[in-house]
């Protein structure tokens, strides 16, 4: 009954919503509010260290900045495809919705792959969360960098899984499992991502529980809410990119 009420935009069978829209959207906005405070705290801590420490290393040369700019373009394009997917869902065109969501997932995965390559490069040069080769007096460079970008990468990964579940529902589960297995087998045993890939397994378990305990056809509202989460992830990168990369360029 509440679904029928929701289909018509505003649940007139109940009191009108204080915020003029359906509850799921309000809930997602509130979650994004809390998550923005989480990232805010991490950004403040990083920025405080960065500004107050004149010896902060600036290791990001042309290659790094180019890579990060391409990553930014990937996320911005993914936001565009996401919003086009939401429009398609509102029209009722779920075939096109799925294609736009796939495009969003492709751009998001490209971001993750580029970011992982960058991490591997930095780790290969000797950077750890506790020390770095460019400024021995600034051990917190690694910790702040990996925490901030790692937290963001985790959000992007969760976003890609979320989108896959919304687009494909139960058919996405074997895909996710296969991805986990393939990446686990393809990464060398001493790589960070050999362990980090288990996030996909956790995502698989959570997605399975959700899809089997509450099976439903995801409608335009669900696509819109997934879109809100995805845009938020892009938003956070809009702040991480200048504060972490552009403020520490090595010309």
């Amino acid at each position, binding site marked *: 009954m509440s679904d029928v009420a929701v289909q018509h935009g505003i649940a007139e069978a109940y009191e009108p919503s*204080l*915020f*003029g*829209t359906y509850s799921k959207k*309000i809930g997602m*906005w509130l979650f994004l*509010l809390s998550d*923005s*405070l989480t990232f*805010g705290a991490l*950004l*403040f801590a990083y*920025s*405080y*260290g*960065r*500004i*107050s420490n*004149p010896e902060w290393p600036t290791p990001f040369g*042309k290659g790094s*900045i180019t890579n990060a*700019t391409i990553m*930014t*373009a990937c996320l*911005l*394009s993914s*936001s*565009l495809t*996401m*919003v*086009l997917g939401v*429009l*398609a869902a*509102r*029209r009722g*065109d779920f075939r*096109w919705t799925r294609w736009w969501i796939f495009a969003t997932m492709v751009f998001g995965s490209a971001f993750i792959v580029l970011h992982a390559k960058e991490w591997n490069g930095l780790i290969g040069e000797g950077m750890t969360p506790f020390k770095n080769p460019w400024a021995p007096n600034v051990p917190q460079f690694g910790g702040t960098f990996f925490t901030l970008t790692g937290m963001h990468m985790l959000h992007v990964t969760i976003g890609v899984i979320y989108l896959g579940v919304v687009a494909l529902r139960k058919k996405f589960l074997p895909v996710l499992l296969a991805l986990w297995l393939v990446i686990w087998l393809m990464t060398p045993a001493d790589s960070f991502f050999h362990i980090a890939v288990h996030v996909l397994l956790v995502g698989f378990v959570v997605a399975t529980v959700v899809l089997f305990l509450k099976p439903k056809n995801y409608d335009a509202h669900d696509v*819109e809410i997934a*879109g*809100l989460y995805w*845009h*938020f992830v*892009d*938003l956070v990168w*809009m*702040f991480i*990119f*200048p*504060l972490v*990369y*552009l*403020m520490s*360029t090595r*010309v």
Partner: protein
Amino acid sequence: MHDVATTHDEGKGQYFWVWGVLLILTAVEVVLAYKRVFQPLRMLEALMMLSIIKSALIIGYFMHLKYEIAAMKWVLMIAVVACLCLMGIFFADAFRIVHLGVR
């Protein structure tokens, strides 16, 4: 070729414009930072200003907040402004520490 959306507010075109502006603003940021056009403090201000503009575009158009009712906009924007004020306080304190030193 699929139809333009017939719902209340927008067509597809404006999203491409917003995307284009976001890419241009990103390019501006990269050029400013890479050429080190400003001193660090000015650079931080310039980058933050550009980032805030980009965020406003994403929140307003992609996240559709521009078309929500006022109550929603107020609740969310007050939170965003609170974050930015906190950022301002932390940044100012960080700059102060550089000059005052640590005892």
